[in-house]
């Protein structure tokens, strides 16, 4: 029974395709998986948007939307109808084809990342051996779509936003990769399924998630920071800084194209959160052995949603960074720490089991954290601002 609940979607898919001729079964099964992903994650996106609007409201001591339906739960529906019925404006001088392709490309690319995420036991759409590599390769091409949008709009704000976005995404792609490299080193595999399997073990009912090791915790935090920046999420949302760039690279987008950008951004965030959960939080494995009876796909989605809530919390708390702070933080703080974290993971691996490796590995990371914060992130360098006025 528990097994059935866990595998319900797999069994359902196999049952559905069993009516088809054999040569058609495999392609249709994959197609069904694609449809499931394309339906599930936008639905989660709608829930996230609602949670975000209500949650941010509460953090600012407001009610948030509460008019559409009971407690405003149909707000995403109203938002969707609004963006669908709005006029789709393309600037006269814009490159219409590229302008149209940019949001479509973003959404396609973002959904492609889900192909390798193990959403549940036996629920990976494409079981690639180099799945993590595929995810990063696909994730990097969101930059292209952002730049397509910025360039084709023929708007100074769009272009500035796109240039910021590309600079930021390239800077943070390095720590993102480096921090997940520790996990890959530890597992010895680029396959997400193998990584989840390695964490899906329990001692005394507690899971072997990588986040519960010193290098894993550091890696997870660095991954979260880099992932936030990679998805242009607050406090790293400089590319769309309203105060200086109107809306950044999607200034010239309206109607459904804007909605696609919005969707792409959130689905991308969920993708990064899913990858983070796969790498550090044990993917679809239950947080306690006694909770193993709950279906595995539930745990994956729950972890993604918790990560989204954390993103919302951070957005409600932190103000936007300045461009120089952003770059400083990436190159002087996050990158050295991720490099050190690689070394730390290796040390952890070769010191063998025991309490000693806990102390040594934690101490190295803590000392590095404090030292880097002192050296790289001190505020004296910025100093008080001086203004020069035209004579």
């Amino acid at each position, binding site marked *: 029974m528990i097994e059935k609940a866990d595998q319900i979607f797999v069994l359902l898919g196999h049952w559905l395709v069993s009516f088809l001729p054999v040569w058609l079964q495999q392609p249709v099964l994959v197609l069904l998986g694609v449809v499931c992903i394309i339906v599930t994650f936008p639905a989660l996106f709608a829930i996230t948007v609602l949670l975000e609007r209500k949650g941010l409201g509460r953090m600012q001591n*407001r009610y948030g939307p509460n008019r559409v339906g009971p407690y405003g739960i149909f707000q995403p529906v109203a938002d969707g109808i609004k963006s669908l019925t709005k006029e789709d404006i393309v600037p006269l001088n814009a490159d219409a084809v590229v302008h149209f392709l940019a949001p479509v490309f973003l959404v396609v690319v973002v959904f492609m990342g889900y192909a390798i995420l193990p959403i549940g036991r036996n629920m990976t759409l494409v079981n690639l051996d180099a799945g993590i590599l595929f995810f990063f390769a696909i994730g990097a091409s969101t930059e292209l779509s952002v730049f397509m949008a910025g360039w084709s709009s023929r708007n100074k704000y769009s272009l500035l936003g796109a240039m910021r976005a590309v600079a930021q995404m390239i800077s943070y792609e390095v720590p993102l990769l480096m921090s997940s490299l520790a996990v890959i080193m530890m597992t010895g595999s680029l396959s997400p399924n193998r990584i989840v399997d390695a964490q899906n073990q329990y001692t005394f009912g507690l899971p072997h998630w990588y986040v519960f090791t010193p290098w894993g915790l550091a890696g997870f935090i660095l991954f979260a920071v880099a992932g936030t920046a990679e998805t242009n999420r607050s406090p790293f949302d400089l590319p769309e800084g309203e105060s200086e760039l109107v809306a950044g690279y999607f200034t010239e987008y309206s109607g459904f194209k804007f909605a696609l950008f919005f969707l792409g951004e959130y689905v991308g965030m969920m993708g990064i959160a899913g990858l983070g959960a796969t790498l550090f939080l044990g993917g679809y494995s239950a947080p306690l052995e006694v909770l193993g009876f709950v279906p595995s796909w539930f745990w994956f989605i729950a972890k993604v949603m918790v990560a989204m809530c954390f993103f919302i919390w951070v957005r409600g708390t*932190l103000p936007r960074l300045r461009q120089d702070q952003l770059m400083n933080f990436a190159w002087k703080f996050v990158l050295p720490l991720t490099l050190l974290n690689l070394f730390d993971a290796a040390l952890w691996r070769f010191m063998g089991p025991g309490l000693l490796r806990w102390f040594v590995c934690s101490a190295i990371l803590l000392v590095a954290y404090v030292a880097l*914060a002192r050296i790289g992130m001190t505020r004296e360098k910025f100093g008080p601002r001086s203004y020069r006025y035209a004579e």
Partner: protein
Amino acid sequence: MLGEGILKGLGETARNFAGSFVSADRLTTVQYPEERIAPIEATRDFPFLVYDGADWEAGLRCVACQICEKECPPKCIYIVKSTDKKPDALGKPQIYPARFDIDISVCMSCQICVEVCPFEAIKMDTEFELSTTDRFGGLLYDKKELAKSNEHFHKVHPTEAAEVDARLAEEKSKAEAKAKAAAAAAAAKAAVPATPPKPAAPTPAATPIAPAPAEEKKP
């Protein structure tokens, strides 16, 4: 230490988030159509015409002197003087406004009409839910829509209305005293000479509160 402020900030927002569910006084939002707060007394938006007594048409204090029409900066008041005279609230025959229109869409709520009115006939209202589906006719208020009772004035601006009432009563009593004195003087005069100048006696009574009509000639 790096990150300390971030943790503090996260704690603060978490406290706000949880607190907004627990204590209602954190949420300062007034959810307008269902909840409302009473307007403060100094609130004013658009002018209305005050009338005394029960009948709005007979009780209008306005005597169509057109000062407000001339003073109105955006020229949103339109007045047509009557050709005949009707007794006002005090029973004295006065010219009255045959038409008195205010275009609410033009009015800028400056209150100058209120300040220049020598008859305390036009005052500011607090009614703000004035939306209408007809943006021309619906926002052009005629005499009937503008007329509101003195009781309404007392309700929306109690302090100002009390002052106005006191002033009007004082003026009235002064006028009465003056009329009485004039009558007494006339009677005394009548008692002494054989032929007194009769018609002059009662007229000065009304003059202190009716200075305006001199301006009515248009250039």
